[in-house]
């Protein structure tokens, strides 16, 4: 019988086998992220920033035992901000302060800290975000609040403009997505944080007509912007169910006061690919895991509904928007195993499905699955295009035997790291 019992256990972390593309920036332009933590806490963010050529936008303020125990931790931050504003040229327009698990225990008054910083550095904007997996059991993942904080830098500006904000994470949305054609047909400009050329362009996002929320963690940010900026929003995180995608686009049109969209060509193209792939895979068992998508249960549900033989879905933290999928599995397909993708049980798990396909590198590696769908791409697919891409990848993976060593080598290959001289006052 299938089950969902994410009983608390030790956690195992498989090696990352995904490839990361270089990004021109990580976050809002002309902004510096100041990571405040014990030194090692920021190690992975910095190494990733080097890999993705975004290191120039990330700075660390290390705190040690003395700082934490003496309580002078909070007072270090304004002086550090002054030093970095004096050092980094050109001077950043905003500073995003990022704190970690330690801060949860120290009880920092973030509102007071932000007020202090804004009064001491009136030309600079500030927000404070958390990276605190320690708080996972208490509520939402920290990404929700982090995104809300980022958009809190926006203030009301002038008249509404014919633009839609794409509220999504920092990976670039694949330009092949039909989303851009649809917006183009509606005469709307697509605005994203990471395509803004400068801070002023980012501030113009406050004048957009709609927030199209493409990631679950954008929900709080959108709700806040509705209150503070009067921008309505549509919750449209990537789903692999065609009905969900259609509904999201139609809701967007309706919210903007437009006629219903004709999406039949996209739906039909996706259905054809689904049918072709289903025929090719036959009864091949499928496993979905959270390294493929933030919403593995939703992906697994879609594939099950399309007639694929999903046997197991691994998830880590089940997001609120994915609970209906979880309940659907319990009610309709209790034979499909829903497992905790973080659990140490992964280490001893054997592949008893034989000739199976894993969508997601983590479980594929752990089970040494013969067929692997490496998903998503470094550029993020969205909408019907994402469904088609998934089907294409599954179709081709059925004929290919996964080479995990080669995947590992590719995942550790990147453009030469930028260690050019900068010195003080770069």
């Amino acid at each position: 019988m299938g089950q969902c019992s994410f009983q608390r256990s030790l956690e195992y972390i498989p090696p990352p086998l995904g490839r990361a593309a270089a990004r021109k920036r990580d976050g809002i332009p002309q902004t510096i992220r100041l990571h405040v933590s014990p030194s090692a806490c920021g190690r992975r963010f910095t190494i990733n920033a080097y890999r993705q050529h975004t290191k120039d936008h990330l700075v660390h303020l290390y705190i040690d035992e003395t700082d934490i125990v003496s309580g002078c931790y909070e007072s270090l931050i304004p002086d550090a901000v002054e030093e970095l504003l004096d050092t980094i040229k050109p001077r950043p327009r905003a500073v995003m302060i990022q704190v970690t698990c330690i801060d949860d225990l120290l009880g920092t008054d973030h509102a007071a800290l932000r007020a202090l910083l804004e009064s001491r550095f009136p030309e600079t904007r500030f927000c404070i975000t958390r990276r605190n997996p320690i708080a996972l059991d208490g509520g939402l993942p920290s990404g929700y609040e982090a995104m809300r904080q980022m958009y809190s830098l926006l203030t009301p500006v002038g008249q509404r403009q014919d633009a839609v904000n794409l509220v999504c994470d920092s990976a670039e949305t694949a330009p092949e997505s039909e989303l851009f054609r649809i917006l183009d047909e509606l005469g709307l400009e697509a605005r994203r944080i990471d395509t803004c050329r400068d801070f002023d362009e980012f501030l113009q996002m406050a004048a957009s007509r709609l927030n199209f929320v493409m990631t679950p963690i954008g929900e709080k940010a959108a709700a806040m912007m509705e209150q503070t900026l009067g921008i309505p929003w549509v919750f449209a995180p990537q789903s692999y169910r065609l009905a969900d995608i259609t509904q999201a686009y139609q809701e967007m049109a309706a919210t903007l006061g437009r006629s219903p969209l004709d999406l039949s060509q996209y739906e039909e193209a996706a259905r054809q690919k689904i049918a072709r792939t289903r025929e090719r895979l036959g009864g091949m068992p499928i496993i979905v895991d959270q390294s493929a998508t933030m919403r593995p249960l939703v992906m697994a549900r879609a594939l099950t509904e399309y007639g694929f033989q999903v046997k197991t879905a691994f998830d880590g933290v089940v997001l609120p928007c994915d609970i209906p999928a979880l309940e659907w599995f319990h009610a309709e397909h209790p034979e499909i195993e829903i497992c905790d993708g973080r659990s140490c049980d992964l280490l001893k798990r054997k592949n008893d499905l034989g000739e199976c396909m894993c969508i997601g590198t983590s479980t594929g590696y752990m089970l040494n699955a013969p067929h692997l769908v490496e998903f998503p791409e470094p550029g993020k697919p969205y909408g019907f295009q994402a469904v088609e891409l998934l089907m294409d990848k599954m179709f081709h993976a059925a004929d290919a035997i996964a080479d995990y060593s080669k995947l590992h080598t590719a995942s550790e290959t990147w453009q030469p790291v930028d260690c050019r001289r900068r010195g003080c006052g770069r």
Partner: protein
Amino acid sequence: MSQLCIDLPPFASDYSGACSCLFELNGMVVIHDARCCTMNYTNYDEPRWFGNKRPIFCSGLRELDAVLGRDDVLIDKITQAAAEITPEFIAVLGSPVPTIVGADMVGIAAEIETRTGIRTFGFSTTGLRYYNRGAAEVMTELVRSYAREDISPVADGVNLLGLTPLDFSDNRNAAGLVETARSHNFTPVASMMMGCSLADIASCRAARVNWVAAQSGMAPALFMERNWGIPWVAALPMGGSGAGQVMEALRTAMEHGESRALHAAGLSTGDVLIVGEQVQCNGLRNALAQHGVTGVDAACLFGLDKLLALPWDIDIHKERELRELLKTGKYRAVIADPTVERLLREEDDCAFFGFPLVAVSSKLFWHNYKLFQSAELDQMLAQVANAVSRD
């Protein structure tokens, strides 16, 4: 390092050093943290993680557990996992949050050992210190716990201390040292901690000299000297011809019982700066002396051990200190991890030679790690000599 750090990456932490030492042994290791610290180690500090499915886990610490002191949650999880994995030992490591709330890793370990009957170590790593401290703590504890008293000395027995991929990467550097010892008629007893088993550690008292190959190896070396009178030599052969002097120093220590850090003759402060791990800095400095360069400063990033240092060596605590040191204009050549070059200015008349260190730059260069005992490294050192000899 403390305070503001603009260009350099955060260095590997003490829990990474500890895990790196425990990696090859048949034990279960648990880092008591929410996930990020463990991820730092597995995905950024352990070149061997891919392809080796070791039972090294995160405890999945949550806020309420930390605040309420719910150590029983951790103990229950470990006990349950140990029943299925049946490791030879268990190790529980701390991280910043358990440190702040005063979690007693030794006490937790004792409770786990009582419940499971499996030898359990509690290491008070904090995530607030560097990797060499964690590695040192683990090696010393393993020696203390496993070394057998009833063992006969091996005539030319040598232990190698301080071998971890954080200093040596996972290329042939560590194995090369073992081969060097063998080829010079030494018998490696325990090569701690790469290519080493608990049985080897149990025999470590049979060695007649300890070869300290990294700063982290000093603590177990001093322990063995204090308790069993085994002398040590801290040295690292660099380039194609450095091994002879190191082997001679080991032989002398073995015969006369005198411990020391190996330094070439005629060294002084000068216009070459080597930045990094202290024993590696000394090794490069000694190798440069063979190229006629004797004016060399060492700037140590992970704490300055006076037993290994020359009087003019520099203890770097902050990025700003290193930046200011480089701005003095004193140095015409710098050897350091490639990320250090970011601290130089365009106008600095200073040749830079990249010498990656996993503990600094993680995976960024670990596939391009220098082979310490190689002609390629000799070429780099010759280029350093050229850079400082030009008018």
